[in-house]
C-alpha cells in the first residue's frame, strides 16, 4: 500500500474497524506499516528490557532490543543501571557482540575506542599522535536511552524524551500486569533466556496472549496428554477432522467465566477469572494463583486486579504468563519475530517448589514446550497468507462478543466480565491504530482511554 506524506493519517483509519470487528490484513505484512510501527510504537513506547536480577554484579550486561536499536543494559559500579546504545560513537560498530556477560568496559574492536560501564569515552588510540588532542572525548559517549526506569525490578526504557513517566504509561492495568508477577514473592530471574525465531508478524504473537478460543483446538494434543485441564463439556460447535469425524473438542473449564481489563496506551488483561481457575486446578496447584489474596499482593493488586488469573499483556510486546514468565515478542521485520522467554522464581519458595515450577515453565512454553510448538505454526501460516493479493483483501475478524463488551469502571480498572471473547484483541488493534498514526501523547492517551462499551 502507499503511505501518504507524514501528517496525513486518514489512509490508516481504514485498517482497523472497531465497529465491525474487522482488520485489514495488510497490517501483518506491509513493509511500510512495519516502518511506521518501528518509528511510532517501538521508537516511543516504554519497552521491557530485562529484570534487575539478570545483571546483579557490576559490569554485568544484557543486550536488549528496542525496535531495531540494540541496547546494553549495564550494572554500574555504584549498583545503578544504565542502558546504552550498542553502537560506537566513532563510526558505528557494535561495541559489544555478546548477548550477556560481564565486562570492565566496552572496547570497540574496529579502532579501539573504549567506553566505561557508564558509556563515557575513556580511551582513544592515537589521541595525541593522530587526533593531536583535538578530539573532545566528553562529546562522544555511548548514547543513552531517553528514559530508563525500574518498576519493582523490571527495567523499562523509551527512546522518546517526551514519553510520560513509566508509572503513567503503565497505568493501573499495566501495573497490575506486572504485579501479577512481581508481587508473587521475592522474584529472581532464572539464568537463561530462551530465544527462537518465528516467520510471523509480531502482532499475531501479541494478540494471541488474550486468545482463549484457540487452546481447545491448537493445543488439543497437549490437552490429551494432560498438560492443560479440560472440562467435561464437549464443544459441539462442529470441528471435524479431515476424515469428517467430530474432533471431540473439550472446552477449557474456565471458558464461561473470564475477565478482561482494558488499559490506556493499549495494555490489557484477558483470561480466566481467579475463581474459575481455582475450580479447575487440583488443590495442590491452588497456590499458583491464591497468593494474590495474601495481604501484600492484595494491597498492590486491589479488589479488581486480584480477581484475574491471567493473561496480562503490556503494549506492545510483553506477555506475563500465569506461572512467572514473560514472553517478549521481538519484531525483526514485518515477517520475522523472535520470541524471548524470561523465567522467574520466588526465592521464598522451597527448592522443591522452585524445581516443580521450573519443570512447568520448560515444558509448557518455548520452542519445545508442549503448548508453544503448535502456536508458532498458526502465526507463521497466518502471516504467510497475508501476502497474497486476494487473500489479504479478506478481513481479519475479531467479532466474538462484538458490541457486548460492557465496561465496568472500578478501582481504576476498566473491566468486562464475559465468556471467551475477542475484546482485548480488538482493544490491542484500536490502540495500535492510535499509535501508528503518530499522534501526540495526549491524543494517544485519550484515544486509548476505555469508555463504556467495546
Amino acid at each position, binding site marked *: 500500500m502507499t503511505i501518504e506524506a507524514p501528517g496525513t493519517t486518514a489512509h490508516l483509519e481504514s485498517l482497523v474497524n472497531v465497529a465491525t470487528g474487522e482488520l485489514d490484513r495488510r497490517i501483518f505484512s506491509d513493509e511500510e506499516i512495519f516502518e511506521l510501527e518501528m518509528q511510532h510504537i517501538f521508537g516511543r513506547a516504554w519497552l521491557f528490557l530485562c529484570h534487575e536480577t539478570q545483571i546483579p554484579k557490576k559490569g554485568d550486561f544484557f543486550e536488549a532490543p528496542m525496535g531495531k536499536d540494540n541496547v546494553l543494559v549495564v550494572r554500574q559500579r555504584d549498583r545503578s543501571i544504565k542502558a546504552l546504545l550498542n553502537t560506537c560513537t566513532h563510526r558505528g560498530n557494535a561495541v559489544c*557482540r*555478546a*548477548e*550477556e*556477560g*560481564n*565486562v570492565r568496559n566496552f572496547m570497540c574492536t574496529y579502532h579501539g575506542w573504549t567506553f566505561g560501564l557508564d558509556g563515557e569515552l575513556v580511551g582513544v588510540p592515537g589521541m595525541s599522535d593522530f587526533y593531536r588532542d583535538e578530539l573532545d572525548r566528553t562529546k562522544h559517549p555511548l548514547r543513552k536511552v531517553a528514559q530508563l526506569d525500574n518498576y519493582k525490578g523490571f527495567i523499562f526504557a523509551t527512546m522518546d524524551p517526551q514519553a510520560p513517566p513509566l508509572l503513567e504509561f503503565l497505568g493501573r492495568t499495566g501495573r497490575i500486569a506486572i504485579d501479577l508477577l512481581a508481587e508473587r514473592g521475592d522474584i529472581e530471574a*532464572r*539464568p*537463561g*533466556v*530462551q*530465544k*527462537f*525465531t*518465528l*516467520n510471523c508478524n509480531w502482532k499475531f504473537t501479541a494478540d494471541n496472549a488474550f486468545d482463549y478460543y484457540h487452546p481447545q483446538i*491448537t493445543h*488439543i*494434543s*497437549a490437552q*490429551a*496428554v*494432560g*498438560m492443560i485441564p479440560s472440562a467435561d463439556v464437549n464443544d459441539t460447535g462442529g470441528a471435524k477432522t479431515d476424515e469428517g469425524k467430530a*474432533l471431540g473438542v473439550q472446552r477449557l473449564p474456565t471458558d464461561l467465566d473470564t475477565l478482561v481489563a482494558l488499559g490506556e496506551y493499549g495494555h490489557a488483561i484477558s483470561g480466566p477469572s481467579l475463581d474459575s481457575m481455582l475450580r479447575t486446578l487440583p488443590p495442590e496447584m491452588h497456590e499458583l494463583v491464591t497468593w494474590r489474596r495474601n495481604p501484600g499482593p492484595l494491597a498492590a493488586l486491589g479488589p479488581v486486579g486480584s480477581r484475574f488469573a491471567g493473561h496480562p499483556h503490556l503494549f506492545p510486546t510483553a506477555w506475563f504468563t500465569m506461572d512467572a514468565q514473560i514472553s517478549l515478542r521481538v519484531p525483526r521485520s514485518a515477517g520475522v519475530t*523472535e520470541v524471548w*522467554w524470561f*523465567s522467574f522464581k520466588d526465592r521464598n519458595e522451597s527448592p522443591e517448589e522452585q*524445581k516443580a515450577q*521450573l*519443570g512447568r*515453565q*520448560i*515444558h509448557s512454553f*518455548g*520452542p*519445545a514446550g*508442549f503448548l*508453544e*510448538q*503448535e502456536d*508458532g*505454526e498458526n502465526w*507463521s501460516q497466518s502471516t504467510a497468507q497475508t501476502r497474497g493479493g486476494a487473500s489479504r483483501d479478506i478481513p481479519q475478524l475479531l467479532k466474538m462478543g462484538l458490541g457486548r463488551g460492557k465496561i465496568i469502571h472500578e478501582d481504576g480498572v476498566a473491566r468486562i466480565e464475559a465468556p471467551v471473547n475477542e475484546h482485548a484483541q480488538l482493544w490491542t488493534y484500536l490502540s495500535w491504530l492510535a499509535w501508528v498514526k503518530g499522534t501526540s501523547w495526549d491524543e494517544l492517551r485519550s484515544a486509548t482511554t476505555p469508555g463504556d462499551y467495546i
Partner: protein
Amino acid sequence: MATAHLETTIAPEKIAAMYLQYEVEQFYTHEAALLDHQRFEEWVDLFTDDTAYFMPIRRTVPRRNLSREFTQPGEMAFFDDDKATLVGRVQKLGTGTAWAEDPPSRTRHLVTNVRIIEDLGTELTVETCFHLYRTRLKSEIDEWIGRREDVLRRTEEGFRIARRDIYLDQTVLLSQNLSNFF
C-alpha cells in the same frame, strides 16, 4: 590366513575396543533409524526409567565468560525431561492432533564422531556429534548441528540411555519449534 595375521599382530584389548566401538555405533545407527522412521514408541524405550534428557540454553558470551555459555541443570533449558515427560512427548505425537507434526516433518539424523570417553563397566560415557536435518511442509528447512553426551547403561536388552545432554551449535534458535527429538 588374514585372521591368523590379525591375531598375531593386534592385541586382544584393541580388538575388544574395536568391537565396543562397533556395538556403540550400531546402537546409534539403530536409534537414528527409529527416529527417522517415526517409530517413537520404540525409540523412547531406549531410555532408562531414571533417564535425564537435557538441552541447555546456549548464549553468545565474551570469551572470558565462556563458563557461562551453557545454562546448567536447575536453570532454564529447552529440554529438561525425565522418562515420564519424554513418554508424554511421544504420546502427544501419537494423538493425531499434534498439529506441528501434521503433516509430519521429514528428518534425517546423522550421527558421527562417536567417541567413548569413559567405560565404567555398567555404564559408558559416549560423545557423539549430530546433524539433524529437517524439512517441513512445502519448503521449510531446519538444521541443527551439535554434540551429545550420553551415559549408556549396559542392560540385558543392550545399551540404554541413562542420560543425554544435547549441546546445540546455535544461541538464538533459528527455527520456529523443536518438535523433534535429538
